[in-house]
């Protein structure tokens, strides 16, 4: 069956579909406001006219390409093309400011490639087994997964004062996520009667505001993004930083595991990989100042999510995230029902699709390596021309998600608030983590308490929950001990 799948894949039309899909994905991912979900959903009607396999290859290529493409504006302009690229922006943009944007892009594409290849391999080899494992996770485990993600806040702080401010920032993020419809009763909360807030504060406008608009406002006092322009053209000669393989491996593993869990998206995967890499790094103090290890972990994490999210999608029909949900729609319109039959009756097509992900990863690797020096030159554009254009795309990106003018005002407000919070030592990373994980934490907490008839024992009496508590403690103890030690040192 694998041989037949390879034969089906290595036809000119199939390879062309993968190439076009991946290239379009990189472009879509690179533009704020255009998401992989939107691109895959838009492709579904197009695939009606195509062979089912060609349509699937196109959609798979878009998914892989978009996940990488989001990192390009995140690194060069601190404007994440996709929410999953926020963690990349934290390290990538400072590198660009130092004139190492090209190297950051190189690290990003190599990490994305490795994460993508690893997760595709996992998908190919052990998809059905992993899907059954993912199904054993219930609300208590999802709540603990959110706590696991929030534990990263502690590692974002380097002293006692910063720790308290980081926790406050995380709590503000969690509170922002409460706005909208109550997940249990359907009651509207804190919406001020605005229909645009019924689904909550949209994530993308808040992100665009905090990272992109705030940065553009900050740049109004400078003539160029980078101070040292001499290094920008040296990308081809710049070797990869030493020790970069460790965060890449770590990110690939974390991304794939997170991707397998339904509902956990690439953004969470990227942040978790980033935080674990920061915790394990020999130079955690360099994080936030342009550490390529952070880019490597985050990018391997979000691309690792691609294959991971397809595990429950293909085997159980449960999409791992919103892009996988759109892809699932694409499968269903072609009469491909997820489940065991997909790997037996339609095995040739399914395996050809899975193997096409490897090719898609190779396509964006070549594209990224070849184009990185040209992309990097964007940072040389004078700010007088660049800022208005980026602001326009930020406004468009904020609007396009829900066609809401209110979202643009949210982005502007978040932009101004981000500057004030940053200047006073509050952590934007922690705030974003709270905003991302808030809905998962609230729903998991509420559902678990209902399941356990109000007893908190439900968070401790299942083996998966105990394992998650152990990981949370492992992540929390070292940074807290370090802060305590710093406090004792005169």
């Amino acid at each position, binding site marked *: 069956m694998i041989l037949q799948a390879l034969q089906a894949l290595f036809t000119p039309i199939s390879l062309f579909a993968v190439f076009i899909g991946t290239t379009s994905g990189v472009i879509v991912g690179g533009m704020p*406001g*255009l998401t992989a979900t*939107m*691109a895959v959903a*838009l492709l579904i009607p197009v695939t009606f006219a195509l062979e089912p396999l060609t349509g699937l290859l196109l959609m798979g290529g878009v998914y892989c390409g978009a996940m990488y493409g989001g990192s390009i504006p995140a690194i060069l302009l601190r404007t994440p093309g996709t929410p999953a690229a926020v963690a990349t922006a934290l390290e990538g943009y400072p590198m660009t400011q130092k004139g190492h944007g090209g190297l950051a892009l190189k690290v990003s594409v190599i990490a994305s490639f490795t994460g993508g290849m690893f997760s595709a391999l996992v998908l190919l080899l052990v998809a059905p087994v992993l899907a059954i494992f993912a199904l054993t996770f219930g609300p208590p485990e999802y709540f603990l997964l959110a706590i696991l993600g929030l534990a990263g806040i502690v590692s974002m702080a380097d002293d*006692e*004062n910063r720790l*308290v*401010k980081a*926790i*406050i920032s995380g*709590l*503000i993020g*969690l*509170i922002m996520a409460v706005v909208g419809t*109550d*997940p*249990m*009763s359907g*009651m509207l*909360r804190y919406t001020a009667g605005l229909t645009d807030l019924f689904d909550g504060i949209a994530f993308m406008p808040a992100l665009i505001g905090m990272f992109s*608009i705030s940065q*553009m*406002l900050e740049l*109004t*006092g*400078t*003539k160029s993004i980078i101070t040292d322009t001499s290094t920008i053209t040296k990308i081809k000669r710049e070797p990869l930083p030493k020790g970069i393989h460790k965060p890449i491996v770590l990110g690939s593993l974390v991304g794939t595991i997170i991707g397998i869990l339904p509902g956990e998206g690439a953004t969470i995967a990227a942040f978790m990989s980033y935080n674990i890499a920061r915790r394990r790094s020999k130079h955690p103090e360099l994080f936030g100042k342009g550490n390529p290890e952070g880019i490597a972990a985050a990018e391997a994490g979000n691309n690792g999510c691609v294959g991971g999210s397809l595990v429950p999608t293909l085997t159980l029909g449960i999409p791992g995230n919103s892009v996988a949900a759109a892809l699932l729609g694409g499968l269903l319109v072609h009469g491909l029902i997820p489940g065991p039959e997909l790997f037996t009756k339609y095995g040739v097509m399914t395996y050809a699709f899975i193997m096409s992900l490897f090719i898609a990863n190779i396509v964006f690797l070549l594209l990224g390596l070849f184009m990185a020096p040209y992309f990097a030159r964007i940072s040389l554009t*004078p*700010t*007088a*021309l660049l*800022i*208005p*254009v980026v*602001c*326009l795309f930020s*406004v*468009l990106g904020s*609007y*396009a998600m829900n*066609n809401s*003018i209110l979202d*643009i*005002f949210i982005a*502007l407000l978040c932009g*101004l608030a981000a500057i*004030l*919070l940053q*200047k*006073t*030592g*509050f952590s934007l990373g922690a705030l974003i983590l709270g905003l991302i994980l808030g809905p998962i*934490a*609230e729903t998991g*907490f*509420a*559902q678990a*308490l*209902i399941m356990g008839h109000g007893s908190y024992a439900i968070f401790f009496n299942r083996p998966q929950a105990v394992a998650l508590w152990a990981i949370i403690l492992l992540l929390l103890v070292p940074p807290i001990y370090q802060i305590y030690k710093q406090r004792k040192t005169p």
Partner: protein
Amino acid sequence: MTKRFAELFILTGYLILAVLLYRSTASYPDSVQGSTALYVRFLGTALAFFCSLELFLWFKNRGQEESEKMTIATVPMRFWGLFFLLLLYSISLSYLGFYLASALFLPLAMLLLGAKKPLSICLTSAGVLLFIYLVFAKLLEVPLPEGSLF
């Protein structure tokens, strides 16, 4: 405004938010008092606790640290100019529509930020709008803001 005063201002605001958040859960339906209302109460309590702790640290270290002046913008004219231009642009989108509002915003913002060459201002503005028209509007059919006046 000094940095320390700004911190105090923000923390006080957060404390008020925490109290309001806690009190708001009383209006939640009875069915969720033990689930989502409990979660929101926990958030309110935690925020109040950590803000109080930070305020305690703030007062404790007040004498030790020298308070520095907080500079929000290095060039205030451009910073606030761009912000208000963005605000005006966002408001005008509902009236003028995307293309007209953007055609005004782009050159004005470029001039404000110090661009001097009329040719590069015109070419960049026109190029960006043409790109958005072709890729966003025509190819991907992304809905753009429409004006009520034009």
